């Protein structure tokens, strides 16, 4: 399993544990799952859920970087990017 797959799995777990998303029965959350269209997360819910991920991975993600995030995969790449920069710094 690559770190990208692991990150997608971690995001899926946080989505389900927060209970804010409407995850349709039987839906498998993949990197193509869209936060707004598929999980019905509004902009504020996305911010709350990213906050949970920031705490879990000890990161700080600037809010403006979230505007480009549409899918779980986008978010996984963003988080991985920050993890790398942070450990390099």
């Amino acid at each position, binding site marked *: 399993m690559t770190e990208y797959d692991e990150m997608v799995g971690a995001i899926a777990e946080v989505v389900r544990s927060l209970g*804010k998303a409407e995850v349709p029965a039987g839906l498998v959350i993949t990197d193509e799952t869209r936060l707004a269209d598929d999980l019905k997360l509004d902009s*504020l819910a996305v911010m709350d859920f990213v*906050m949970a991920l920031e*705490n879990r991975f000890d990161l*700080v993600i600037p*809010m403006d970087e979230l505007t480009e995030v549409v899918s779980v995969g986008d978010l996984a790449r963003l988080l991985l990017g920050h993890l790398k920069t942070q450990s390099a710094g």
Partner: protein
Amino acid sequence: MFGKFASLHEAYGRVRQAGADPFGVAFDEVVSPTTARIGGRDILLLGTNNYLGLTFAPEAIAAASDALHRYGTGTTGSRIANGTYAGHAELERRVARFLGRRDAMVFTTGHQANLGILATLAGREDHLLLDADSHASIYDGARLGSASVTRFRHNDPGDLARRLRVLADKPGDRLIVVEGLYSMLGDVAPLREIAAIKRETGAYLLVDEAHSLGVLGERGRGLIEAAGVHDDVDFVVGTFSKSLGSIGGFCASDHAGFDLLRLAARSYMFTASLPPSVVASVMTGFDLIDQRPQLRAQLSANAARLHAALAASGFRLGPSVSPIVSVRLRDPALAVTFWNRLLSAGIYVNLALPPATPEGESLLRSSVSAAHSFAELDRAAAIITAIGQELGIAGPQAAAAESYVSAAD
């Protein structure tokens, strides 16, 4: 063009179906700080942020009226062009003196104060750290500027400290932004802990006292006074539209160079200044806060009375006893029904629905005024309780009934 609002349109339609439009209530007449009239009926105002009840203070009306006659209806210009009168400069000195700060800038609204200050102070390499439950104007100001913006968990100094630690190696300044009293649930910021983190990390601290000015602190200076952290706070933002009963915003600071923001903050530079009548009523409002500490004592007693009555009825309320008393509900449809029943019974409160609310809850938000009598508050609490019981929200079975309603929804 309007297609993107389809879901908002649908949600708004659902809210209006239940009766009156909670976001479009028009008072035919407002006869006192606590009473309005709609369709010939008296309505008890319990959601106006008129904390000290100063909107009808005879002294403020006389001063405003005199200024209106002497200086006209408006300034027709911005502060940096033709819109600065002696009164604006005098008001700025008054705000600075009131708060014990070196300088103050007056804006045309509180919203514009946050827009101008946050967007201008924090530049490209800087970091803004906002409490997650911050007012929309704080988010707007942050988004308008070029600083990197992060939100920390509401009232969680630990999360704030964690974020500052992660950012420690990055260049630029850090500005922490919190509110004195949060408008939805009426909870206060843990300002001493936040000030300690600010000191340890070398960050700057801005406190928005919109709901706490004139309300908290021994002399009504706000949460900064109540928490005893004057020297740790770099910028104080606030509004004249709540306890001062008028309109306008300000930012005050001790920092040398603060005055330069007058030539950099766009929401200060490119909008018309406050009308002289407003400036005069605000000046009088500051005098009244100083002259009548009994208003704050009455407000505090009133807040405690409504909070105790609704808590005794079994409603879930905010964590602190403050003039903002919010009944927390999980089901938005139930909240809309409740709100309509209250208006029909002659009680006006605010309805706040997600996503504008913390934790996605629906709120029936009351704000208590020093001008309310105990009789008015007792009557309001009795009506809220009676309707709450009919809807299965108040009383010993409240929590179970509400979760049942939510689950069934």
